């Protein structure tokens, strides 16, 4: 299982590199993975054997086609087409980790309530690199449930500076 995920991740990585748009594809795929994780219904739909493959691929292309690049949409559609929809998040995470490793970086998953601008991203990446002692590759997810602030996860380390976390702390204190 894990071997197959590794193989798919490596293959997708090679395709993205060959297409010369690794960074974009990587970012977009990462967002697709998080979208699927946050949306069970979507994951169930694209893995539902009762729905014809063309139909499921159509759903994926409709959903991501307008927002992601063609190559990203094609890759996701391809995985759904060969029935690997359920492993999509795992394959994508592996791909992202591999790509970061090739750049001697570690993936830093960052969740914020509002999108970050370029300057904020750069400074956040630098701050996290400094804090963890690793070169980080920043993957930003806009997640309204954090309410405000930032949640960063680098490997097993989680740095939680979100308003949600502070409210939780407050709840614990009661």
């Amino acid at each position: 299982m894990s071997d197959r995920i590794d193989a798919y991740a490596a293959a997708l990585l090679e395709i993205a590199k060959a297409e010369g748009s690794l960074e974009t594809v990587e970012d977009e795929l990462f967002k697709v993975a998080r979208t699927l994780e946050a949306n069970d219904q979507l994951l169930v739909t694209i893995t539902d054997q009762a729905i014809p493959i063309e139909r499921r691929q159509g759903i994926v292309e409709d959903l991501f086609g307008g927002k992601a690049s063609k190559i990203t949409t094609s890759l996701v559609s391809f995985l759904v087409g060969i029935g690997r929809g359920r492993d999509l998040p795992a394959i994508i995470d592996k791909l992202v980790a591999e790509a970061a490793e090739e750049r001697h970086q570690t993936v830093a998953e960052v969740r914020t309530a509002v999108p970050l601008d370029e300057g904020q991203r750069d400074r956040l990446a630098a701050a996290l690199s400094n804090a963890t002692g690793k070169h980080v590759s920043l993957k930003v997810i806009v997640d309204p449930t954090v309410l405000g602030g930032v949640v960063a996860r680098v490997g097993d380390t989680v740095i939680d500076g979100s308003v949600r976390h502070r409210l939780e702390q407050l709840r614990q204190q009661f």
Partner: protein
Amino acid sequence: MHVMALVMQAAEEGSQQAKNPILPATNEIIWGTLAFLVLLIGMWKFAFPAVTKAMNERTERIRSNLDSAENLKGEAQQILDEYQRQLADAKSEANRIIEEARQTAEALRRDLMQRAEAEVAELRQRSAEDVAAAQERALNDLRARISTLVISAAEKVVERNLDRETNTALVESFINSVGATSV
């Protein structure tokens, strides 16, 4: 004097007549004496020893009977003594058993009392603890509900009032604090 003269005269007259009314005839005397002697010798020889033996045996038997009666009496006395001693023993044993039973009952009573008192104390303590635990639980429950309410209210307020500017400031503050530390 007159009488004597009469007896003498009569005797003289008897001897003269050879017909004495008191004395038997001479041959009768001889035969009688012989027969008597023969009987005496026979008696002496055979009857006396048998009678003597029988008498002796009887005497002996009586003595032995007396002895055995004496012995029996002594034995009876011994048995009586033994019985009396056993009775006394039994009485003292009975007293001892009664005393022991009394002491056991007393110990049992005391033990039961102590146990009952301990149980009552334990029950009392347990119910006090139960009450305290229930209070604590209720308090915690209340606290949890209040905190949930307060936090939910706070979340709603924050959600509504957290504008982009504040959010940016929060992100900046995160960047600054993370950049200054090392994990």
